[in-house]
């Protein structure tokens, strides 16, 4: 069962020099009960993709495609409909989770302000739930009565995770939540996300990272984005053991060793830079850096084809008909 179906989604940024095609015809599903990983170099459109599901503010705009969430197209909702879905059904742990809570408001007040706007009427019930969940993430229930400034960075991160998931959203988006953290804290965060799934607090998670090695520990399936396009989608284990797309292969090779501690990779292992999203080439977007580049790659865009069981990739080497 798919919780979210993305079909040919295009999300652009309006700029004086023309639209930046940050997400340019992306399709995938997020199934109920899975952690769906999205990986790719910095700037490939991961944040744009997931944030556009929640909120599109100028200069970001929807340039085509659908995002069907629980039967409704998120791109077509009215302002008020979209607002109601946020938090209760579709929530996010932002990249800046440590600074996401208003420093001058008690955590219980922040939560109550939000819950009230989503139709909750019993303050003590909401606060009770908050204390329960704080205890669940190994914070003192008293944290509810504290100001975010009184907490350490790690505690704030966990408190934000509790706040984001308090109303049991079906789909939780976690955008680079581990990027700024040390390895120990990363592990804690990932355990908590697992815990949220096991407890049925959230049905599915989209886990966004530029850190491929991390996906192994959390994502059931993974999608690799390159310059606003899907390069490959596969069950994570299969992606790691037998990557199909040249870009994925290079990404994996550039990692020191999966599962071993390593520094944030900027994927310097791959020569060259991502292409400009203002004026992307009409062929394969990876051709400027691909070691296997063929003439065809410059002219024709490779379609996403099934290369194995539940395994898709977009590369001319893998065959497939032209669209």
């Amino acid at each position, binding site marked *: 069962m798919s919780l979210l179906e993305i079909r040919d989604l295009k999300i652009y940024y309006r700029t004086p020099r023309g639209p930046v095609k940050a997400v340019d015809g992306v399709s995938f599903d997020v199934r109920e009960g899975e952690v769906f990983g999205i990986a790719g170099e910095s700037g490939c459109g991961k944040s744009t993709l997931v*944030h556009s599901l*929640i*909120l599109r503010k100028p200069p970001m705009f929807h340039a085509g495609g659908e995002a069907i969430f629980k039967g409704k197209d998120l791109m077509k909702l009215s302002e008020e409909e979209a*607002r*109601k*879905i*946020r*938090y*209760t059904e579709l*929530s*996010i742990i*932002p990249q*800046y989770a440590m*600074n*996401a*809570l*208003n*420093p*001058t*408001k008690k955590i219980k007040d*922040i939560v109550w*302000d*939000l819950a009230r*706007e*989503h139709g909750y009427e019993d303050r003590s019930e909401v606060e009770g739930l908050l204390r329960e969940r704080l205890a669940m993430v190994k914070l003192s229930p008293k944290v509810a009565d504290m*100001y975010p*400034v*009184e907490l350490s960075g790690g505690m704030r991160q966990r408190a*934000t995770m509790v*706040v*984001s998931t308090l109303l049991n959203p079906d789909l939780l988006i976690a955008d680079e939540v581990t990027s700024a953290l040390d390895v120990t804290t990363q592990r804690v965060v990932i355990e908590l996300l697992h815990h949220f799934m096991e407890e049925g607090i959230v049905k599915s998670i989209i886990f966004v990272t530029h850190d491929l090695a991390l996906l192994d520990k959390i994502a059931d399936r993974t999608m690799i984005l390159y310059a606003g396009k899907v390069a490959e989608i596969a069950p994570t284990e299969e992606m790691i053991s037998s990557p199909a797309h040249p870009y994925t292969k290079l990404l994996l090779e550039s990692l020191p060793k999966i599962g071993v501690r390593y520094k944030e990779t900027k994927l310097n292992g791959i020569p060259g830079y991502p292409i400009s999203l203002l004026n992307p080439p009409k062929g394969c977007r990876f051709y400027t850096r691909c070691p296997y580049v063929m003439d065809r790659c410059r002219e024709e865009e490779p379609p996403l084809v099934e290369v194995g069981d539940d395994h898709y990739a977009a590369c001319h080497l893998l065959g497939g008909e032209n669209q």
Partner: protein
Amino acid sequence: MGFRRYLAQKTAVYAITFLFAVTINWLLPRLMPGNPIEAMIESNLNLGPGEKEILIRFYEDLYGLNEPLWRQFVNFWVRLFHGDLGYSLLYKAPVWDLIRHSLPYDIVILLPAIALSWIVGNWLGAIAGKNRRYDRWMMPLFYFLASMPYFWFAMLLVYFIGVKLGWLPYQGAYDPSLVPGLNWEFIKSFLSHWILPFLSLFVVMIGSWAIGMRNMIIYELEADYVRYLEALGASEKLMTKHAYRNAILPQVTGLALQLGLMVAGAIATEIVFNYPGIGILLMNAALSQDYFLLQGAFLMVVISVLAANFIIDIVYAFIDPRVRASYTEG
């Protein structure tokens, strides 16, 4: 650790600042060239050659100005703790009496001007910060107001409203032919004299409050916590509520600092309107080297500035949890 230590620490810092500031105020006039008594005598009397020296000696003895500087300094502090601010050479009256009679005029002009301009300025600034369309024409107006010198705007008011149109009086605090008292005629005269000096401060002050608020609102509305609220489906109203509360905090500091300048914060205004506040006293005291008056008036300024800062330090620990967190940590 905690609040008591914070309080003790702040008190110590302010006490030291107070001693230092008062000492400087005492010392500076004495380092100025010239002799105030000589000046006073020459300007006032037609004396024979020998009489002058005698008079100078007499007055120096009277005021203790012939003693060594350190003695004068000790005397100064001793008298101060007895509530004695000395005697004005210029006005021939106890300094405390002069201050006591001038201070109400400062307060009656500055307190409403500061408080009301704060409210109106924050309100306008908040609107501009929220709404780009207003911002486009309001900001230049704010900058124009804020960059206008007080005395300049005061002179415009005097010229156009006072002189050209003749709508309102612009000299003094009330009609000099009236005896101050709680009667309708005096109150009417007082209020009509009050309007122009009040306006001259109020209007100019609005500008900087509004700019401060507008910038803070824009900053806060873009802060991470507002983005987070928005992502979790907060209404516009809720986001604004959170942002405004944080934006107003620095403005509260600004307000306290301004209130600290309530004494003598309007020297230029008082001069233009000949309004009999501490500002006028200060100016005259400085011009005629009236040590005691200068000291006394400055003492008031120092006390009010320090008191305002002290109070805001304490109040802030209550209204801003970030400040509280910083002293409970350290």
